[in-house]
């Protein structure tokens, strides 16, 4: 039987024409015609600024756009037929595009980019979101230079964010990843990142490739592959990330892509996360975090309502997932009024860890487990917003750090519930 390849014949033909490269920038798209052009131009300018002599290619992995996105990407190629481009390219700057499916999948998109990078023997590869319209050209060298010149294997970004943006990351993904794997990577689930050839090849070789069933979250898996595989990680401060780029859409799908992947990783990586405590900083270019304080509208009342309703409606589900102590405490705080409501960090960490253990044991449909966590997360966010309503940037950082330390302190509890569940 002929093994199915993510690379179409057309893509292979394009890769032959491009040939070996030093740098590859992947651009996964799906109907991004409205935003992709400035992103491509920023990538091009960044490549010309940062890597004027290197052989470079932009690979667009498109999930079946119907708005002409791929044409916009390839139309921006700087080759010997385009002399009007204001930047100066020493050599041809290739842009190629491939359509991998009629069904967009971040995992297939990433896998296509990884495969192209491996075939073209790219020494350093970056992935950029087509929606990062605020992207500056220097993001490209900031992401790629540590890989290309300093032999790092994974570079994740640090963005300048509003204190109430990226809450899923700051309240769950970052602290839990840090506690589990011991590295303080602020954006383990990033829309922009860079990786080395060896990390890309390692991930490609070990990725199960079940892209239909997995959905997405491959970016986070790549980060965890790097951490657990002993690859060298690095962080680069990029700048302002436009509001809502990554948080767009419903919470549950976002949690599937992040929390689901994180929980899934526990079983495979048990040896890695169970053997150590604490965490270490990651080498970082620029500021380790930047928080802005301009006003932002959040409907906190609704968060609390959804928490309260969730705790009541999902009690049968929670009985299978949570310990009786934790459930009782959640039910207690659900009765509190808005002014008195407080979802303490310790209770939140225990909640998350118990969900993680249940997820591994598959006490029920994993999707239901993630859905069950959503209202509880909203309750925790209500408290976070309340606690930080008047906080300065430094105070917000301090609170996030406290939460991280709580995740680290209670890690033995995760081991305990993990073993109990087994």
């Amino acid at each position, binding site marked *: 039987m002929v093994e199915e390849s993510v690379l179409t014949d057309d893509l292979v033909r394009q890769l032959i024409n491009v*040939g070996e490269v030093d740098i590859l920038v992947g651009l996964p798209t799906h109907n991004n015609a409205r935003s992709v052009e400035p992103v491509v131009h920023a990538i091009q300018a960044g490549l010309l600024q940062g890597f004027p002599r290197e*052989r470079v290619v932009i690979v667009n992995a498109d999930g079946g756009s119907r708005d002409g996105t791929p044409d916009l990407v390839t139309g921006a190629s700087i080759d*010997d037929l385009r002399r009007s481009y204001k930047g100066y390219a020493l050599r041809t700057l*290739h842009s190629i595009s491939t359509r991998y499916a009629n069904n967009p999948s971040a995992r297939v998109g990433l896998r296509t980019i990884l495969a192209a990078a491996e075939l073209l023997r790219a020494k350093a590869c970056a992935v950029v979101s087509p929606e990062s319209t605020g992207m500056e050209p220097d993001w490209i060298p900031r992401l790629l230079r540590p890989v290309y010149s300093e032999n790092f294997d994974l570079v994740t970004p640090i963005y300048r964010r509003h204190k109430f943006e990226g809450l899923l990351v700051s309240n769950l993904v970052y602290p839990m990843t840090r506690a589990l794997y011991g590295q303080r990577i602020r954006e383990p689930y990033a829309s922009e990142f860079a990786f080395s050839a060896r990390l890309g090849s390692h991930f490609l070789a070990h990725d199960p490739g079940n892209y239909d069933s997995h959905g997405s979250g491959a970016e986070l898996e790549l980060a965890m592959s790097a951490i657990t595989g002993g690859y060298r990680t690095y962080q680069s401060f990029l700048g302002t990330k436009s509001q809502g780029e990554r948080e767009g859409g419903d919470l549950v799908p976002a949690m599937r892509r992040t929390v689901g992947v994180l929980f899934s990783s526990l079983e495979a990586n048990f040896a890695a996360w169970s053997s150590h405590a604490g965490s270490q900083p990651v080498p970082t270019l620029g500021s380790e975090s930047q928080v802005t304080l301009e006003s932002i509208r959040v409907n906190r009342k609704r968060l609390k309502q959804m928490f309260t309703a969730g705790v009541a409606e999902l009690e049968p589900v929670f009985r299978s997932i949570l310990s009786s102590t934790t459930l009782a405490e959640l039910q207690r705080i659900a009765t509190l009024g808005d002014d008195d409501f407080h979802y303490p960090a310790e209770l939140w960490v225990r909640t998350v860890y118990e969900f993680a253990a249940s997820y591994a044991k598959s006490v029920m449909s994993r999707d239901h487990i993630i859905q069950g966590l959503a209202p509880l997360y909203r309750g925790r966010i209500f408290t976070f917003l309340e606690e930080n309503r008047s906080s300065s940037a430094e105070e917000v950082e301090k609170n996030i750090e406290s939460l991280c330390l709580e995740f680290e302190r209670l890690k033995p509890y995760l081991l305990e519930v993990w073993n109990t569940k087994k």
Partner: protein
Amino acid sequence: MPARLDTLWYKNAVIYQVHVRAFYDSNGDGIGDFAGLAQKLDYLQELGVDAIWLMPFFPSPLRDDGYDISDYTSVHPNYGTLEDFKKFLEAAHERQIKVIIEMVLNHTSDQHPWFQESRSSRENPRRDWYVWSDTDTWYKGARIIFLDTELSNWAWDPVSKSYYWHRFFSHQPDLNYDNPAVREQMWTLMKFWLELGIDAFRLDAVPYLVEREGTNCENLPETHAIIKELRQKLDHEFPGRMLLAEANQWPADLRPYFGNEDEFHMAFHFPLMPRMFMGVKLEDRKPITEILQQTPEIPPSCQWGLFLRNHDELTLEMVTDIERDYMYDSYARSKAMRLNLGIRRRLAPLLDNDRRRIELMNGMLMSLPGTPVLYYGDEIGMGDNVNLGDRNGVRTPMQWNGGWNGGFSVADPESLYTSLLLNPVYGYQAVNVLSQKRSEHSLLSWMQQIIRVRRSTPIFGSGLIEFLYPANHRVLAYVRQLGDETILVVNNLSSSAQAVELDLRRYKGKIPIEMFGRNLFPRVAEAPYLLTMGPYQFYWFRLRRI
């Protein structure tokens, strides 16, 4: 028609550049001479060249390798006599080899009697033959060309206590072309050589003839007017003779030097040369196609002079800063290899003595639109000596055999005009004409073959060019067309094997015949024409409908 064709001889010629001093010493004084050069004409005829371009051989203090002339109507005693020159010229013509000589219009040596008179007093009748000033503040817009040695384009003359203008070395004062007597005198000098029978002049440093305040003193309309005047006289009195411009300028600035077929017949395409090296190093055709896209059309009787290397440094004046940095890092990592804004190295060392790259570069030289100019010794892959000063490292004696002084001279080695190359890679015992003549696979034999193939058709010299743009940017492909004849040229600029698909639908039904081996390739069809190419490989296909 035949007469008309003959006047265009330069369009389909292969020119060989040589310094008399460096080629062959017939009298054992350690310096090459005209009698020696004449003895080696059979070699050049076998190589297949159509014309010899001689570097300056006039009396000179030789502070700039003869470009500082002190007498325009004689031969430097080192190289023989005027009689020797005439004999050489006659022998060359007997072999149907044309002779191109230098004419340095812009400046003389400061030892030239004209300058000695000019500086002697402000009242001297020749005072106005040079450009004098009481201050050094004029023409600030003019760049300094020899950055490594000169701080200003003005030099103080302690004799006449004023400044004189010089665009090159300070011992080379510029002539004043605003003076009609100077213009008339220079034409008289040119006539002297034309009447002896030389076929063409390579006019040195043409853009700088005239100075005007508020300009960069290059390519001025007044300079073009002077060229037009010379061309008119040449066509009138010596039809069929040719003027070749040395004007290191961007293509758009070069175009006016062809005028309306009333200035130069030929001009060197300086910006193309470094980009050919760049294209091979980058493994990308972009630098080459880009500069040729920027190259304007020239009148039908005019021609570009193409070269890979010459007696000067590989000039990087006509590249951007980023390109110059790249070229230095790629081809001149050692500071000793750099001079002014260029690289003082020969072809073979520049290409790491890689035979495949040397062949590829020569293949492009011979097939791009223009007349190829070969630099002596490059046909056998001679090396250089960057330890010699200025540009002397690429002007070492021709290596004829592995014996005494490389067969160049019977003089004591210590009395040669400069030292021979002795190192085990490029020394005369490793690289010489005799040993390469014995091997049909030597670089010399290959050069003879490619020149023969080029000369088998006028298409390379006179045909149109159309670039193909295959998606594989490591491949440079173009079609040359002249009348019914079509030649497809495909160059792999990459160090690795490449597959390339060419859109040849326009030539559907034609059969490509590889011009070196004369082998047939599959007939061109509607589908993209697939070629696989080895590292640095190139093909010349004659597309024939059979």
